[in-house]
């Protein structure tokens, strides 16, 4: 122990390490910041989990389009602790996105982005963008069927950008098509480019926290005035400031370790997401969708009125990003207390409910045809004639059931037709089948006259009364 102490003294005398790090660790922080201020450091902790587990995974992962899938199968199912590590990397990513979101919401709610901490917020928004990029590129590195198709969908979206779109798409794929060049590029982005930017941005973010100090708890009687804030803040720190280490930092440590424990537990208990089919672009049975944190955006893309996609795909992230970036520049003074910022509360509630609602829609994805819909059972069809029973078969064979449900069986893209005859006459049904609609093909050229009349006869028997009769028997 004494030897260790001596070694440290020798090292310290030559590096002044304690003189450099000590004041940083003990910089004065406002008193009574409490548990609301732990989410930033926890985000950093989860990022470090990602760095460490990522490096470990990179020792076995092969970033070759032809072999990545197999190397991941090996990591997941053969390698000692591989399953746990992949799980930690997955849940670490999830935790990082989640904690970053909470940290951002907290900063917004306490108005901490106001003077003089505007740039902290701006850098934080950039870190949010980079984190989302990490999530997306990371999902691709699984390089299963979902990964390949996500790349193509991303390239298609990039292709919508005016002027440079096609170039951008080609840049993403590393060529004209997804192939040998694609994965190694995404691997380099995911493990070198983006993390390097994240490290730089985190450095700046932390330097700015030190430069401007941790924001004090908001107080309604003390709006931010850029002229007087700094001198007031310094005086307040002199009067009642506490050393960051350990007075405030202990909470960060407790919560950070809690976050680590959660990630490890989830990884151990649930394991990583199972790889889907191999990355063969010729397997048509694909159903690509993003990981949970982008599922709400998947819902946005499905809900748009036709023809507006290009504007939304390109414009919405741009507008949202710009709004976030200029927020502290526009509202850099005045009230920080939530009780005096009704619009801040309202906009946050709107954003969170929208994302929440879209997210739930994304989970249900009612717009996706249900290709697994099974033909209706005789009990449901309850056919009074041979024509009706033939109509029920056509209802499945002609694809109607992929979008329309009857008695709970079928897709949700179109209206439920369990009791359609109660609201439409057979003429209306016929017209709709022949003409189609906004989201429905016209079946005029697809159905033979006899098929059409069988289908109409079947649908015309879908009434509440018949339904009740059908279930009684």
């Amino acid at each position, binding site marked *: 122990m004494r030897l260790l102490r001596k070694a440290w003294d020798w090292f310290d005398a030559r590096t002044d390490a304690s003189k450099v790090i000590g004041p940083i660790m003990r910089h004065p922080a406002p008193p009574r910041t409490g548990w609301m201020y732990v989410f930033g450091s926890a985000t950093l902790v989860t990022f470090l989990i990602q760095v460490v587990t990522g490096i470990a995974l990179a020792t076995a992962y092969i970033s*070759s*389009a*032809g*072999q990545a*899938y197999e190397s991941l199968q090996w990591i997941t199912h053969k390698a000692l602790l591989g399953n746990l590590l992949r799980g930690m990397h997955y849940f670490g990513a999830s935790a990082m996105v989640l904690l970053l979101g909470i940290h951002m919401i907290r900063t917004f709610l306490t108005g901490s982005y106001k003077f003089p901490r505007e740039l902290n917020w701006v850098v934080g928004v950039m870190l949010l963008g980079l984190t989302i990029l990490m999530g997306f590129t990371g999902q691709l590195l699984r390089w299963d069927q979902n990964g*390949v*198709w996500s790349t*193509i*969908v991303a*390239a*298609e979206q990039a292709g919508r950008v005016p002027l440079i*779109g*096609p*170039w951008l*798409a*080609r*840049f993403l*794929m590393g*060529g*004209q*098509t*997804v*192939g*040998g*060049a*694609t*994965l190694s590029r995404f691997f380099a982005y995911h493990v070198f480019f983006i993390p390097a930017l994240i490290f730089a941005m985190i450095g700046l973010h932390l330097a700015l926290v030190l430069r401007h100090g941790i924001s004090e708890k908001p107080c309604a009687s003390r709006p931010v005035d850029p002229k007087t804030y700094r001198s007031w803040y310094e005086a307040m720190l002199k009067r009642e400031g506490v050393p960051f280490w350990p007075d405030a930092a202990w909470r960060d440590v407790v919560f950070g370790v809690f976050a680590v424990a959660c990630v490890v537990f989830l990884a151990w208990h649930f394991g990583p997401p199972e790889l889907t089919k*191999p*990355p*063969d*672009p*010729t397997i*048509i049975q*694909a*159903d*690509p*969708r993003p990981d949970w944190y982008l599922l709400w955006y998947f819902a946005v*893309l*499905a809900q*748009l009125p*036709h*023809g507006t*996609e*290009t504007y939304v795909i390109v414009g919405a992230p741009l507008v949202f990003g710009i709004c976030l970036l200029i927020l502290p520049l526009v509202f850099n003074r005045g009230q920080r207390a939530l009780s005096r910022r009704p619009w801040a509360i309202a906009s946050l509630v709107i954003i969170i409910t929208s994302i929440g609602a879209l997210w739930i829609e994304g989970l249900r994805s009612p*717009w*996706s*045809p249900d*290709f697994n819909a099974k033909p209706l059972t005789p009990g449901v069809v309850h056919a009074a004639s041979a024509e009706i029973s033939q109509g029920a078969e056509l209802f499945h064979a*002609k*694809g109607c059931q*992929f*979008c329309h449900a009857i008695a709970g069986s079928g897709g949700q893209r179109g209206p439920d037709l369990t009791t359609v005859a109660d609201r439409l006459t057979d003429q209306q049904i016929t017209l709709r089948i022949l003409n*189609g*609609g*906004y*989201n*429905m*093909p016209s079946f005029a*050229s*697809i159905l033979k006259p006899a098929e059409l009349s069988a289908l109409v006869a079947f649908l015309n028997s879908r009434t509440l009364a018949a339904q009740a009769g059908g279930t009684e028997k």
Partner: protein
Amino acid sequence: MSELGESSPERRKLLTILSVGLGCVGAALVGLPVVGFLLAPLFERVASKWRGVGTADSFRKGETVEVKFEDASSVSWAGVTDQTAAWLRCEPDGQFVAFAINCTHLGCPVRWLQEADLFMCPCHGGVYYKDGTVAAGPPPRPLTKYPVRVRDGQVEILTMPTPIA
């Protein structure tokens, strides 16, 4: 400062400009090849290739089937990813039409529903008729077509880039 050297303010200004300028030159010397290397896929011209997908008489008239072929730019480490699929339709008159499997909405692979004579996309529910025109849903354009030819009894498809809007 004067004891450090005989630099005049003008000389210091010159030295600053020189150093910053030289630094930029050094950065460009390293950076330009790197940027060029990264952007190379944008400038590479990959010649399309005709790929055989089967003999003409192996396709039944009026049917649409999935065919697979190799991309034009194929490297040995691409594994299965250098494969591409297309929907090949043999018209009743014996003519062939090949559609890209990519939905024109966001590129997901559309499925052919034999009984219903429709292509349907699993992602956001785009639907196309058998001739590739949009039947319903969000797709902005008909399915992209590949050039097809029949040569020596072989149906051949001309490779092309993944269709991007």
